């Protein structure tokens, strides 16, 4: 790419530059001894062609929409259409959440994203002892198809795309969604959306696991198989680095561990007899966007290039769609501060720019009050407006991958790819992601980075505005959203009514059939769909699977 003959000349001018800056900094030292990226990697004062000597445009980048997709998965990216502005929302009852979704759609949100409460995510009905105090708190409570019907009331499922953050019981919630579609007269092949369905990162970082690894992987590959035939427009998994990053990982770890999880899912599906180009086009990813704008942009580009190579070279994919890393982004919850919460609007703006300059397919922007409580309606609107302003006013969407070719960006992209690949190689040596989770390797690496981050803040090596510098005296924040404890009581009462009014013999029959299927090798999706349609509850269905599969035991370590 560069004229090799001119590099020695450049080298000597760089040496002169280094001498000059050294003279200067001897007199007046720089602000820091070492300048570090958001992830703690040293950053040099200047980048030149010497940092990317091997750079070859066609091999490293290619055109947007072409292998290795460094510059983006579509040829024209946001000139065609902006990313999907998808605000993650859900709290209290299905009725309340339904109102919030309609509000978001009115305000220009282009896709729905459902947050479920913890009991739902862990497969407990609202009347379970362990659900006490948790019902409707971090998301909406769904006990049965009844709740799901209310949740999507008046929202035509052939018109919206819906993302559901659900993992261990993803099959059950997907079954309910299919059933709601059917009641609306929308066939499964018209449904568009995503289930998170990524159990490995639950073991690593997010914690809403239920079953052990093996049956969990079976449920996931059953979904891949079922959807490839019946729900072809559905993204069957969202392989998530988001929570890995929130748990404290670096940017390179986020890419390395996420793609290692991705490799495990591909291997599981191949082992189950699926063909790579049958299911791989429906794999999707989910990344975080933190404050270090340039490092984040490089991260997204590195992830795309590395995944394309893995799919092509390691798994022999032939369909270009199998090689494209499509991803959703959420801004970094852990970067937001409880102190001076309005400052978070600015952080989210930077993170939005990073996601957009990094070529995201959809984006959730966090609200300013998320370090304090669930977001209020006003805060959500500002967060959505942030995306709209970046999309329509900032100009960064006019040209595809506008930062490409920057010495810094390309050097950083190479570096993150290289570091991520080193993690993947290490995990391969351990025997794959599930083993590297069981023995705690991945969790330990993340925790080391998280602890270093905290120490850097406490030693003031890392400035967090409002936290360790520029503090002010503040009163308690106003206007926070609160979820009433009566939500739990209301859900419990509805469960009593449901169980009195449904056909309990039919429920029993479908649950017995499901149990038999769990013991065998049939695809479980049709059995689960039968059960949800007769209003078996999420807890009942999950309990059948708990009885057969057992429960995951966490490797507890600090």
């Amino acid at each position, binding site marked *: 790419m560069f004229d090799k003959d001119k590099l020695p000349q450049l080298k000597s001018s760089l040496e002169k530059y280094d001498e000059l800056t050294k003279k200067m900094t001897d007199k007046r030292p720089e602000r820091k001894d070492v300048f570090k990226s958001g992830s703690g990697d040293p950053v040099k004062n200047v980048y030149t062609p010497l940092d990317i000597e091997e750079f070859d445009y066609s091999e490293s980048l290619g055109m947007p929409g072409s292998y290795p997709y460094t510059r983006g998965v579509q040829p024209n990216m946001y000139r065609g259409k902006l990313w999907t502005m998808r605000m993650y929302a859900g709290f209290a009852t299905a009725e309340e959440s339904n109102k919030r979704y309609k509000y978001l759609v009115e305000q220009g949100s282009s896709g729905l994203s459902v947050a479920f409460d913890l009991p739902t995510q862990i497969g407990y009905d609202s009347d379970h002892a362990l659900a006490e105090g948790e019902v409707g708190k971090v998301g909406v409570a769904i006990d049965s198809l009844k709740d799901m019907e209310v949740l999507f009331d008046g929202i035509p499922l052939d018109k919206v795309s819906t993302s559901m953050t659900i993992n261990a019981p993803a099959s059950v919630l997907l079954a309910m969604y299919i059933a709601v579609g059917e009641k609306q007269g929308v066939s499964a092949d018209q449904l568009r959306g995503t289930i998170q369905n990524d159990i490995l990162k639950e073991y690593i*970082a997010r914690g809403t696991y239920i079953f052990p690894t093996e049956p969990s992987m079976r449920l996931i590959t059953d979904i891949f198989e079922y959807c490839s035939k019946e729900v072809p427009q559905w993204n069957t998994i969202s392989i998530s680095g988001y929570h890995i990053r929130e748990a404290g990982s670096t940017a390179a770890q986020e890419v390395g561990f996420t793609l290692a999880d991705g490799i495990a899912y591909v291997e599981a599906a191949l082992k189950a007899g699926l063909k790579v180009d049958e299911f791989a086009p429906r794999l999707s990813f989910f990344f975080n966007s933190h404050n270090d704008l340039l490092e984040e942009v490089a991260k997204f580009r590195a992830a795309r290039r590395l995944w394309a190579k893995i799919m092509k070279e390691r798994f022999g994919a032939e369909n270009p769609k199998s090689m494209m890393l499509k991803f959703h982004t959420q801004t970094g919850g852990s970067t937001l501060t409880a102190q001076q919460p309005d400052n978070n609007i600015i952080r989210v703006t930077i993170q939005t720019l990073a996601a957009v300059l990094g070529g995201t397919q959809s984006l959730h922007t966090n609200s300013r009050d998320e370090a304090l409580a669930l977001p209020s309606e006003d805060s959500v609107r500002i967060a959505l407006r942030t995306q709209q302003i970046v999309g329509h006013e900032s100009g960064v969407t006019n040209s595809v991958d506008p930062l490409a070719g920057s010495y810094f960006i390309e050097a950083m992209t190479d570096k993150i790819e290289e570091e991520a690949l080193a993690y993947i190689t290490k995990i391969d040596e351990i025997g794959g992601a599930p083993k590297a989770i069981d023995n705690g390797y991945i969790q330990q690496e993340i925790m080391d980075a*998280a602890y270093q981050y905290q120490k850097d803040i406490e030693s003031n090596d890392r400035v967090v505005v409002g*936290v360790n510098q520029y503090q002010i005296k503040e009163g308690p924040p106003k206007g926070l959203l609160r979820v009433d404890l009566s939500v739990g009581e209301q859900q419990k009462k509805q469960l009593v009514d449901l169980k009195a009014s449904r056909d309990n013999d039919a429920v029993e029959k479908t649950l017995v059939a499901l149990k038999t299927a769990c013991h065998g090798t049939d695809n479980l999706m049709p059995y689960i769909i039968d059960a949800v349609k007769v209003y078996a509850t999420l807890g009942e269905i999950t309990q059948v699977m708990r009885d057969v599969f057992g429960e995951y035991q966490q490797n507890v370590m600090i």
Partner: protein
Amino acid sequence: MDRPIRVLVAKPGLDGHDRGAKVIARALRDAGMEVIYTGLRQTPEQIVNAAIQEDVDVIAASILSGAHATLLPRISALLKKEDAEDILFVAGGVIPEDDIPELIEKGIKAVFTPGTPTTVTVKFIEENVRK
């Protein structure tokens, strides 16, 4: 005290966010304390039983799910019932300022909200633990 302070770092409820719990656990350990971490999804009963069995001086509970008003007072009530109120009970996490007075009234000795330096928690424990 002639032995290091023993702390049970606990995750009550269904919340899976354990970054804070683990960071605090490491910080307390680096400050010379002995730390036992419960892992996720512990009921108040399990936490209090573990605290008594492990003979700890401190319970440090981390909760970010919004279930603090239900779960934390239950832990202090159980400590009272087990005659173990000399165990210092502190909590941290995403807990709105407005909820703190009620928690303090119900026996939680301190609540540390996001952004609190670990040194503040360490100091509080050192100054308030049973002597």
